[in-house]
């Protein structure tokens, strides 16, 4: 948090105002959509989405086009890479893998009316997708965790010497 507050302090006043305005517009866009959905005003989705995406873009550009010391923030992000990777992997993968695995229970369900051919085809597709998903996701997770845990992490290496091959 210290890094983020220091970063905020180093931004110019004009930029801070711009960021506050963009943030407020994002909130306003979200509220517009929420109200529109409750009252079933369909047009608010388009307008709200435009406001949110345009404000988000402005927010990102204002931040990116400044130099308050992003290297520090990068270090903070890098330090928390491992838990972030694990949480995101769970959110991304758990429902999918559960869905793919549970689908096989449908083969034996009482309500099953599909023909054998279709069930075989479905099983083949499911097995294929499950294998591809689990295989690739496991390898990606392994490599991501290894990179996150690297002792010689990029920001800890401040070598100024010639690197050798």
């Amino acid at each position, binding site marked *: 948090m210290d890094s983020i507050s220091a970063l905020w302090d180093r931004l110019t006043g004009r930029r801070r105002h711009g960021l506050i305005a963009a943030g407020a517009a994002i909130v306003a866009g*979200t509220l517009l959509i*929420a109200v529109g*959905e*409750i009252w079933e005003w*369909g047009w608010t*989705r*388009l307008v709200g*989405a435009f406001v*949110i*995406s345009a404000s*988000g*873009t*402005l*927010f*990102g*550009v204002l931040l*990116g086009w400044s130099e308050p*010391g992003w*290297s520090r*923030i990068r270090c903070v992000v890098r330090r928390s890479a491992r838990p972030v990777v694990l949480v995101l992997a769970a*959110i*991304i993968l758990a*429902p*999918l893998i559960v869905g*793919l695995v*549970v*689908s*096989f*229970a*449908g083969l034996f369900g009482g*309500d*099953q009316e*599909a023909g054998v051919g*279709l069930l075989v*085809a*479905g099983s*083949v597709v*499911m097995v294929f*997708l499950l294998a*591809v*998903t689990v295989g*690739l*996701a496991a*390898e*990606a997770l392994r490599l*991501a965790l*290894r*990179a996150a845990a*690297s002792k010689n*992490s*990029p*920001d800890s*290496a*401040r*070598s*100024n*010497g*010639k*690197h050798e*091959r």
Partner: protein
Amino acid sequence: MTPTREILWNIDLTGQIGVYAFLFLPFVLIAFGLARRVWMWRTGRPENRFDRMTDRVWGALRDSVMHGRIARRSTIYGGVMHLLIFWGFILLFIGTVIVLIEHDFTVPILGYSFFQGSFYLGYKAVMNTAGLMVIVGVLMAVYRRYILRPATVETAPDDVILLALLVVLVVQGFVVQALRLAVEQDPWASWSYVSYPMAALFQGLPEGTIRGLHTANWWSHMITTNIFLGYFAYSKMIHPFTSLTNVLFRRLQPLGKLERIRDIEEAESLGVARLEDFTWAQLMNVDACMHCGRCLEYCPTFQTNKPLRPRDLVLEVAGYMADRGGIFSGEVGQGAKSARFRAGAGPDRDLIGGVVTQAELWDCTTCGACMEHCPVYIEHVPLIVGMRQNLVLEQAEFPVEVTNVFNNMERLSSPYQFTPNQRTDWARRLEQPVREMADVAAAGEQVEVLFFVGCLGSFDSRNQRTTLALARILQQAGVNFAILGKEETCTGDPAKRIGNEYLAQMMAEQTVETLNQYSFKKIVTACPHCFNAIANEYPEIGGNYEVVHHSQLINELIGSGKIKLDPDSDMMRGKVTYHDPCYLGRYNKVYDEPREVVEALPGVELAEMRRNRNRSFCCGGGGGRMFMEETRGTRINQARVREAMDTGATMLAAACPFCMTMFEDGINGVGAEDRFQVRDIAELVYDAMIKSPKSAAGNGARESNGAIEEV
């Protein structure tokens, strides 16, 4: 019943609001990442890349969107793989936009629905096909990375994370669709031909379970989409943006032209020692690399195990720039064999020494294979030469072997220790004298052709044989030509490529000044390095000439019947292979004429090497490398000689004095002097041509075996 579906089926109010509210996150992240990159590029020096916008836009469409440079014959596997992922992903993106238009614009605002009927059925089939395309493309990528494992491809976490995210996104889409179909049981469900059989399995589950799974997977799919988009700007997935901009703002000048340092006398710093010394376009260049490794496929240094790997050099600079800008750039872990894995070693380093090693810079032969094959037009050679310029001009750091080259060029106007008066020594061996331009001008005459001999052709005993052969051919063909003689100076090419821009400019200006004194129709030269400098670099300093390579002129003379080849000549017969000089082929696209000359030789069969034309492999002599020791890795010239011998040929036809020298050395190096030889195409043609009696008699050359031997 009209085929259609309910958009956001089974999604409650929270989800219907959340799908829009969460939009801000990817937009902020993408905009931040892109803005940081553009901000970093703007730290570079100015350069105009906004000219000829029509050409630029068309090129960007052709080469990026239509995959003109990605899917080439030589890289068909990678090209097809990329096409499947690219177009599959684009179709899925368009599909999502179509749903948004229906749900958020045409229905609520115009009161009109198009997402039904045959359009809807076609949409379902296309979306399923697009998903399959992505999965097949990703599996091809996995097969290449984990099974084929080509030497040019290295796998980093970033690569696999992106492939996994792509697959997960598509599989989530199929599962969400199948779960909805399992409940809705649309009569037209079979149009979703991948999800339809999957839905059959889900149908056996209780509806509550299916709906629960659907909600969970829908949320997961939405979050994954946002993560993927957010990750976009901090991984190599940014390449659709950086590559497209790089292709759009690519260099439209000839590939063989290296930029001059303008006002070199007044320049505060020379060459590139800091990121800020690159131009903004060069900084954009290094960000455009998507790590495909195509620059390595024909790179002489990579293929002979030298430290320089063009991809890694670019990624080192890109990683350094990311460190300086405080952003992530698809970093890839540490401790692996490749420099690529060291990207991100911190911002407090010197560019030369701390980021890029001197060994990398000095190993480059400037052959241009990396630039020719880069799908996104990264210009590696100017990056390297820029850093060489700083080493030479500011730090006086260069291989000791080139000290004499620089000294000789300064004192004698040639890289060799010969005086200008010795430039015409070779001509004494001719039966008929060769005129010099000064004499021609003094006589108030003009010549059709100025024969620019070049330093190697003038002084090197082996290459003098090529010069003699060409001069005799011109005389036999009745071409009205002359040489500059002792007025000729080095074009400056070796100095320029080594990084001595000051000396190179001096040589170039001197040569242009000399050439501009005389009147001639065109210049012919047997040296592709001179050819490239005169054709591509001299116009900028007031030297506008028509210049042809001797292979082009000889081909023209054969075609017009001015040279007649003797079917009974006793020159060698059988297989001859031809080597494309980099500065003739890749840099100036002269591929056909030398081959036509070789094929015209009686009894000769042209045998192509595995790497030919724009995929040719360097001789190792360009970029000033001919004057330097080759101490790292294996010898480039020997690798090429072995490849030439593998064709079954006993003769290598050369068209460049640098290549000639390197191959003579290479043949000796592999111990093949007794069974393999290298000759210039001019020598081969002179041996095979029908000569006039005047020339054949008493010319002092022994021609029994076709060789023009020294007298």
